[in-house]
């Protein structure tokens, strides 16, 4: 069926709108100097060399990784067993989890940050830890969705029954039967959570501030100093979320194939 021309136009507008800022930044990160001319005067990789030679950047990268990875692992360890128990043994509590998720939507970073500052800023607890706790709440919707869907897909209830009839304890059954079966689905939502947290700025900036530089805060500081370096960071950041998405897609496809 031949499609009318305007269908190409509508998609084209959306794709161009989403692509142009990315392409512009990409070009700028490789430009030697670009102030008066339409096209950059030359191309170079020196901004990337400079960026990865900057200890401050490497440290901020390390902090970002520790924060996002730490929060994701914490969420994995605590949330997956809890959601497993609730979905299988207390389905009535699921309604409550769904209300919690709506609550997190109604309390985006800026609102959550105000509450956390009021509650904990004078408590003496490290605000970095508080931020990780806030991240736990922030990624709750994605982890819940991912875990619940995986449990449904593998028909967890009958798997547990079978394992228990064969003499496995509930913990062994969970660890040896359920976890290996849902791990790929859970990894997908973990990667999603990780990439969301890696781009998080609001909570870390308001709760901890500039003296604990993550990549996002480093980028924010660089905005006013060097546009080229800032665009190199943006390109690297976009590359990272692209790689993570590619892995997620691969894993989702693999999971679907055997069925």
């Amino acid at each position, binding site marked *: 069926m031949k499609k009318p021309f305007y269908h190409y136009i509508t998609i084209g507008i959306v794709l161009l709108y989403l692509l142009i*800022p990315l392409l512009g930044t990409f070009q700028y990160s490789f430009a030697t100097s670009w102030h008066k001319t339409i096209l950059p005067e030359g191309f170079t990789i020196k901004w990337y060399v400079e960026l990865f030679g900057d200890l401050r950047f490497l440290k901020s990268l390390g902090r970002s990784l520790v924060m996002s990875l730490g929060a994701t692992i914490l969420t994995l360890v605590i949330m997956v067993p809890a*959601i497993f128990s609730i979905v299988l043994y207390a389905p009535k509590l699921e309604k409550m989890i769904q209300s919690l998720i709506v*609550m997190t939507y109604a*309390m985006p970073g800026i609102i959550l940050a105000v*509450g956390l500052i009021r509650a904990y800023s004078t408590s003496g607890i490290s605000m970095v830890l508080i931020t990780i706790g806030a991240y736990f709440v922030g990624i709750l919707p994605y982890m819940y969705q991912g875990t619940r869907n995986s449990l449904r897909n593998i028909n967890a209830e009958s798997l547990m029954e079978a394992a228990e009839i064969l003499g496995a304890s509930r913990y062994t059954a969970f660890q040896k039967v359920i976890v290996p079966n849902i791990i790929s689905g859970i990894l997908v939502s973990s990667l999603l959570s990780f990439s969301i947290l890696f781009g998080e700025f609001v909570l870390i900036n308001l709760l901890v501030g500039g003296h604990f530089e993550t990549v996002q805060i480093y980028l924010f500081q660089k905005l006013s100093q060097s546009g080229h370096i800032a665009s190199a960071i943006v390109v690297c950041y976009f590359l990272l979320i692209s790689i993570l998405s590619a892995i997620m897609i691969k894993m989702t496809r693999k999971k679907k194939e055997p069925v």
Partner: protein
Amino acid sequence: MILKRMNGMFLISIIPFFILVLLFLFVPLFFMLYSSFQGDGGSGFTFKQYLEIFQNTYYHQAFKNSIIISFFSSLIAIGLAVFATYSITLFSKKIQDRILVFANLTANFAGIPLAFAFIVILGNSGLFTLLFKHFGWDLLNSFNLYSWSGLVLIYIYFQLPLAVMLIYPVYQGIQAQWKESAALLGASPLQFWLRIGGPIILPSIAGTFSILFANAMGAYASAFALTGSTYNLVTIRIGALTTGDIFARPELGSAIATLLGVTLVVALLINEWLTRRIRRDLS
């Protein structure tokens, strides 16, 4: 004996979860509400902060700016997405998947990196700014990235992929048979969309709109990266009042945050109400 152990396992698995939710969702919510009813410096019980928001035109302006920018960016994004997403559904599954992956990817591209990407193309010495200057076009004279017009463009950018992803499943609900039946009975495509397709998808579109609106109302990082604390938006005011060194008035910030939260709850309730309507209509 066995039952007891099961209960123990059950409790061990859910208790840490609920403790964390309590500590990082309910406790901050409570403290925010509590301090919104306190005077400056945390004294007594008072409605003073709320009264000030209702009386001070500066905060009216903040709410007005946030609402207008959220409304228009959601409207434009949804307008584009309704047509583009329909066009997408006409292509092969492979192309549909690719476009959705790209939408998903750009949906994650928000906040500081996004604000910077717009500075590169439309800032004071941005790519398009230079290009238009070269051709002597005055188009950009009336445009300023660091004000309303620039913020709307950025907001549209992060709303657009979200709108496409939320509307895509809506079109999957329109069955090919309906179109065929309507065509057999002599309806033109336009008539189909006006009389049948449109009314079916309208509640979902309106629901998506309220989600986009809530999403934009709560956005902070892009505007902050672009204008610091100068542009008067609700979220920017909250940030400045809560953490600003000189002008910190956390109690007032809490009251504004509470009002913003109420706005978001209303938007989400509207979405839920609309979603329920669709389900009833279809069953």
